[in-house]
């Protein structure tokens, strides 16, 4: 179990969660051709005048992508770092459009679940506004 007080995470549990969907998630991460076409379909990307941090694929590559690359061997600060990417930078509206069929929100949703499993939640009162 993650110990919220001690600021630790349960890497074995993270690895198990990652493994439970690796056939899908690793495959899709590997399938993304990094074309950036999805960018302008995200209203948050547009609202932030093209800040790459709001691009759908960027959010997934730099959260779930790293989790898979490191096989879940991350620390609490990693989750604190991606919290903004998966909560503040995405509202799971499912508008993002990938021409080759990548379902980005599904991956962000999964990443949020992993965050929650480690006691990491969005700061709705911490000034992380969406716009």
């Amino acid at each position, binding site marked *: 179990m993650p110990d919220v007080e001690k600021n630790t995470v349960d890497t074995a549990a993270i690895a198990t969660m990652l493994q439970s969907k*690796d*056939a899908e998630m690793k495959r899709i991460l590997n*399938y993304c051709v990094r074309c950036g076409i999805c960018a302008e379909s995200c209203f948050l990307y547009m609202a932030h005048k093209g800040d*790459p941090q709001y691009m759908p694929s960027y959010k997934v590559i730099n959260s779930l992508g790293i989790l898979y690359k490191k096989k879940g061997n991350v620390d609490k600060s990693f989750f604190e770092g991606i919290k903004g990417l998966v909560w503040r930078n995405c509202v799971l509206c499912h508008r993002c459009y990938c021409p080759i069929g990548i379902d980005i929100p599904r991956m962000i949703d999964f990443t949020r679940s992993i965050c929650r499993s480690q006691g990491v939640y969005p700061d709705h009162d911490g000034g992380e506004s969406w716009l």
Partner: protein
Amino acid sequence: MYDVYGFIRGPMVWLSFAIFFGGLLYQARQFYVLTMETSLPRPPASVTGLAKGAVKRSSFDPRTMLFASAHPVLAVITTAFHACIIILPVFLLAHNVLLFESFGFSLFVFPEPVAGLMTWLVIFCGIFFLLRRILFDHVRAISTPYDYAILLIVIAPFLTGYLATRQWFGYESILVLHILAGELMLVAIPFTKLKHGLLFFFYRYLMHYEHTLGRGSRTWSGTTLHKRGNANA
């Protein structure tokens, strides 16, 4: 002396085609292993119903068809690029001469000036994609050496093919380079990101999600690599 040229022009071509077709079949099979029929509601199975559903979701609207969020210039360039890459090698005169020599039949062929224009188009689009990757912040932010390598693998056969046709820089050596580049591309397609040429149809037409173009009849089965063998290729 062992005939390396002969090998590159002979057995290696057949081997590359075998890996290409075998690899595509493998990827198609993996798709069905890793996904299952969904019980979620979906458009009717009839062809007319499917067409109606697709029109409703604007998938036949040229403006939104495949590139809903792409800039119109990008949409035109990427469409031309993909079309030429697939069509040109199949209907090229020189390739069909080889086809005839091997199997005794050939396909329709493009007149040489048209083929030359299409080759130029591929090279121009390739340079466009390269510059886009380097110059646009949002594309650069997600680009890795792998993505540049993929672009190079795709452009190389067309560039060397053009040089070979013009007989520049020594025909024989450019031709061997061209054949090697073509073989590399064939082998790379099923096992790199280039597999989107095939999997596009599976993901866009069969998977159940917001932007499906077909019935969306399948969903991921939640299979893990550990239970069902390596699905990562």
